[in-house]
């Protein structure tokens, strides 16, 4: 669990983070969103004490971060820096092994872990022997993510981790991250400019602007009731409704008292995909089957009903 209590940090005249209070329960994925310069990166760096706050405090698992030895604290928090920041004089494998080496892991365990992580982020084992400058920007970013994951940290701080990755790889990385999170219960604080990524991954969205937290809510709640016109515009403006469809699944809107012919949809299908299929097939109703094997029907009217 991470608790931010009245955190503030100024740089000269600008208030980068201003009275920020936010609780991120254990196992949550919290996406920090907001315009450029909103203070998202600064908030992350306050958590791992790369910068110290002017006011307020950070609690990690109930302990005041300021009281913990800073080096030990940082080794517990995986960190993906916005500008990747790989060590150019080390191979990819050595880069990934940074924290395990700092923690004094045994050599063979490190090698095994590196191999595992390379596969996890979709790189070939041969990439381990390369130098960062021999990789593409997106590949470098994936190494940065692998490096942050290496020692299975209890908290992951990720600053735009997939910004330079192509859409397909990005999706598979998001799935991988979700898997890891589900398996290990890691608490993740993610900064992203990709709203769809935030909606797909996050359990909580926190919208910052000018250093202040404007709204923290579940994706669905924020989309359904944005606290300010700026948030509404940020989440898609007139197309916000389409985004809202991403946050609910077919099962919730299905009428299980009826059935229809055809290949049934999975009840876990997000509503935007349901609409996409209707458009593709030129119909307004589709059959659905849930995990338990129950059959039902979803109609366009059900989808758009609130």
């Amino acid at each position, binding site marked *: 669990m991470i608790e931010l209590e009245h955190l503030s940090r100024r740089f000269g005249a600008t208030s980068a983070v201003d009275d920020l209070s936010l609780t991120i329960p254990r196992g949550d994925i919290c996406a920090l969103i907001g315009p450029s310069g909103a203070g998202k990166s600064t908030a992350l760096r306050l958590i791992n004490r790369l910068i110290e706050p002017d006011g307020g405090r950070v609690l990690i698992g109930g302990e005041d971060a300021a009281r913990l030895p800073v080096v030990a604290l*940082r080794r517990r928090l995986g960190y993906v820096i916005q500008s990747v*920041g790989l060590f*150019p004089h080390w191979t990819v494998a050595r880069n990934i092994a940074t924290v395990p080496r*700092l923690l004094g892991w045994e050599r063979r365990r490190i090698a095994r872990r590196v191999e595992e992580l390379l596969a996890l982020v979709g790189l070939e084992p041969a990439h381990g022997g390369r130098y960062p400058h021999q990789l593409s920007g997106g590949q470098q970013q994936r190494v940065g993510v692998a490096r942050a994951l290496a020692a299975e940290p209890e908290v992951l701080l990720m600053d735009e981790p997939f910004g330079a990755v192509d859409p397909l790889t990005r999706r598979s990385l998001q799935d991988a991250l979700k898997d890891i999170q589900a398996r290990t219960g890691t608490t993740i604080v993610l900064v992203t400019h990709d709203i769809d990524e935030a909606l797909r991954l996050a359990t909580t969205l926190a919208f910052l602007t000018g250093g202040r937290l404007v709204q923290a809510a579940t994706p669905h709640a924020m989309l359904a009731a944005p606290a300010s016109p700026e948030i509404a515009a940020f989440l898609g403006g007139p197309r916000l409704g389409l985004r809202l469809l991403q946050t609910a699944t077919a099962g919730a809107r299905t009428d299980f008292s009826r059935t229809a012919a055809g290949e049934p949809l999975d009840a876990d299908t997000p509503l935007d995909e349901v609409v996409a299929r209707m458009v593709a097939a030129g119909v307004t109703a589709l059959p659905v089957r849930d995990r338990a094997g129950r059959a039902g029907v979803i109609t366009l009217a059900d989808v758009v009903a609130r």
Partner: protein
Amino acid sequence: MNATATPPRRGNRADAATAGRAHAAPRADRRAWDPAGVAPIVAAAALALAALPAGFVGVAPNRLVSGVPRGLWEAAGPGGCLALAMLAAALAGLALTGAAAASDTTPCRRQATLRAGLIAALAAGIVVLLVALAGAAAHAAVAADSGGGGRTRVSLGAAFWVWLSLALLVFAGALRRVPPLPARAALIAALAAALLLLAGAGAITDLSLAREFAVNRAGWVDAAGRHLLLVGGGLLVALPIGGALGGWAQVRPGRGTGAFAVLNLLQTIPSIALFALLIGPLTALANAVPALRGLGFGGIGAFPAIIALALYALLPVARGVEAALRAVPAAAVAAGRGMGMTRLQLLAGVVLPLALPTLLRMLRVVVVQLVGLAVLGALIGAGGLGGFIFRGLGQTAADLVLLGALSTILLAVAAHLLIGALIALLDPEPAR
């Protein structure tokens, strides 16, 4: 111009010679010579031909009178002339075809490398031949003058120096176009070995320069050691202080300007003046604290020379350290910090390795500069190779001056090559 088609590369010696067109076109390719590169070749050939009437060696009846110049034909005979002419012609031909071949640029990279290697080998051959011919001419002159009682002096003439310089310039320039490090090292080693072999075989013992060396052999070893001691002492003082200054300037940009202004001012003091200026205050210091005198501190001797050298080295060291630290990517440092590296781990594991190439380049410049400057130490009783130069000046013995100067240059070149080899070895980039 054709050069526009070739990718720009750094550090081309040919550019310095043709600086005028540097604005008009990107720098010439490192491996291939563009047609405009014909100009320096023609200029060099013209210079070499122009030196032909000058003396190859000078023969004097004793050490104190200046010699009578003897031309190449007279000194080396037809055989020597023919050998030299053939080597020079081959070199010029190879260089010219190289310049012409540049129009079809990259596909012939290997060929260009090979050609550069051949050019370097030919230039080295010319150097060795020049020395051997001069040595043989000296031997002949001394033998002919049996009545002179061994006082006959054979010095090296203007033509010799012009050709030697040209050959060495070509050698160094061609070496830069030989990318594989072992090949480069082998060429340099071969040249050094051939010259040492010549000397060892007694082929140059009758040259007055060799005579001066033979007479001063014991003193020479002492002086060279002393010279290195002065340079090492200067570095020992300048590196920590300059390093701290540079580090400070990097951490607090803007604050360092005052310190740099002072260092800049120091650089403008003429070196001879600085050595002399230190005598007063340091003598006063030694008088005030007699304990220091016991340690060898005082207004004259090695101590003030080391201080003066350190003062000169301070600015380049500080600037070099600042630049080296600035070259370390900030994101890598931030990432290292964020992952829980301690200060020491960050410094030893990230900052230093990434700054090292730039630091070594700075060190190379500073060492070469100090080796040259340390000559002045002899003026204030610090000894070193400058001793030969100033003694020679006093006695109007040009060969003694030459001995000191050549030794200094050799020392500087050796230091340059050694640190250069270190830089190349430490290059983290795998060979391309």
